[in-house]
């Protein structure tokens, strides 16, 4: 599997569209033990990305992702702005100046994104955050690609893992973020950020199937 500039743009567009389409749903998820603004923050953030779309520097995929990360980190508030912004920034840096990204590179970029979130959020897997989807998703993707699966199949498998992992956050007690204030009461509902990643993965898998990949 390789991914070119078009693919990276497609991925970012799909993420943006998913955030915009699910503003209410993501907000409802954040209402249960959070403050309900996650859907709104994410939508406003990617709205800004879409608004500035044509002006984003496209020298290479890495630069493109870094610019997207800058927009989100600098112009989006809440917890999600810094975290998602950092994730895109780190992924972009890891891509370097490559025009085409290999499967290995994609995995490395996702790991860099997760590490960025961990550092910025002082959090880790097990805290009931989006990391509890991002990390298993990346693990599975790597596993599938290493095992010889093609891009589409690997993505589809990782997406199933993401969905399972997102659902499983329901059993966890939040230890970071606003939900953590409720302690035991956070058990019984899925984490909003985690579920958002699963939904994004599903959307990517779907468009991969319908539009094919390079």
């Amino acid at each position, binding site marked *: 599997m390789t991914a070119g500039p078009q693919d990276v743009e497609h991925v970012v567009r799909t993420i943006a569209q998913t955030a915009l389409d699910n503003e209410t749903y993501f907000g409802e998820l954040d209402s*249960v033990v959070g*403050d309900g603004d996650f859907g709104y923050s994410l939508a406003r953030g990617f709205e800004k990305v879409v608004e500035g779309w044509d002006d984003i520097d496209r020298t290479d995929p890495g630069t493109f992702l870094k610019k997207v990360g800058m927009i989100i980190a600098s112009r989006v508030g*809440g917890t999600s702005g810094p975290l998602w912004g950092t994730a895109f920034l780190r992924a972009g840096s890891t891509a370097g100046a490559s025009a085409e990204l290999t499967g290995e590179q994609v995995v490395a970029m996702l790991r860099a994104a997760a590490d960025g979130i961990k550092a910025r959020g002082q959090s880790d897997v097990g805290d009931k955050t989006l990391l509890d989807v991002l990390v298993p998703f990346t693990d599975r993707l790597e596993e599938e690609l290493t095992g010889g699966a093609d891009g589409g199949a690997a993505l589809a498998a990782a997406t199933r893992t993401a969905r399972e992992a997102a659902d499983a956050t329901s059993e966890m007690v939040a230890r970071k973020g606003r939900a953590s204030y409720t302690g035991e009461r956070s058990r019984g509902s899925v984490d909003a950020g985690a579920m958002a990643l699963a939904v994004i993965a599903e959307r990517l898998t779907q468009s991969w199937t319908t539009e094919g990949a390079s």
Partner: protein
Amino acid sequence: MKKFVNDPKQFVPEMLEGIALANPDTLTYVPEYNLIMRSDAPRDGKVSIVQGSGSGHEPAHVMIVGKGMLDAACPGDVFAAPPMDYVYETTKRLASPAGVLLLVNNYTGDRMAFDMGREMAEADGIRVEILTVDDDVAVKDSLYTIGRRGVAGNFFVIKAVGAASERGADLDELVRIGKKVNDVTRTMGVALTACTPPAKGSPLFELGADEMEFGVGIHGEPGRERRPMTNADAIVDELLEAVASDLPYASGDRVALMINGLGGTPISELYLLYRRAHQQLAARGITVGRSYVNEYCTSLDMAGASLTLVRLDDELDGLLAEPAEVAIRVF
């Protein structure tokens, strides 16, 4: 949604524009960064004091910008920490040779935005300190969280450092004073109804007709526990027990007592709460030296209240007694 609102996305900018229109002589509004600042800031000899936070807590913090309080506030959207850019641009505009003090209520989003904004400002050669406020005793176990939340007690930190900075205190001194106030300040709140964020358009959670949310957060986060509704005196007794035993405040102490309305509770009810708290403190041998009954840090239209105690000494008493001139006013 029973609210005065136009486009929910314009809720914060339109509110800020209202504040600016009502205070043309004293405040400057920079729409790009949700920034409300004193028109006479920065001043060379004075540390600039800045607060961010999410919106929806008014009068905190955009309405307490003014002489003796904040020099600027750059809130994010409703219940969302400001983007890093707001913090950075605000810090640049408020940069004084005496430095900039960034006040941060202890939430993940706010801490990240202010840390990042500070790094960028320092890279520009601006002297910046961050002071974190975390007065909410509702959040018990700090091992599992980023620690206590910053809520209404924040007012006292702002008031004290605001007064000290008008007197000419330097940045280190302000940090010392702010930490000292935070150390002797404790708050706990209770919600009778949920708030309705404009962008959501419906209540953030559902409370039964006979339920209250004890230890609620100011962003509508659920609290310690949901309990059956009781009368005003019983509610005060429980809030007071949680707050007073935390520091602990002891017989012989002199305190400031704040009853803060969360947005939907009329001030008449706040005075009922005040009465009981004052009497029960007296019964514990604790004297109320300063009283505060009003809305200071709200949660949109939430019905509810919080109780804050600050242990006073002569230094704090003097700072809290200083005058201040802010947008939120009666006259």
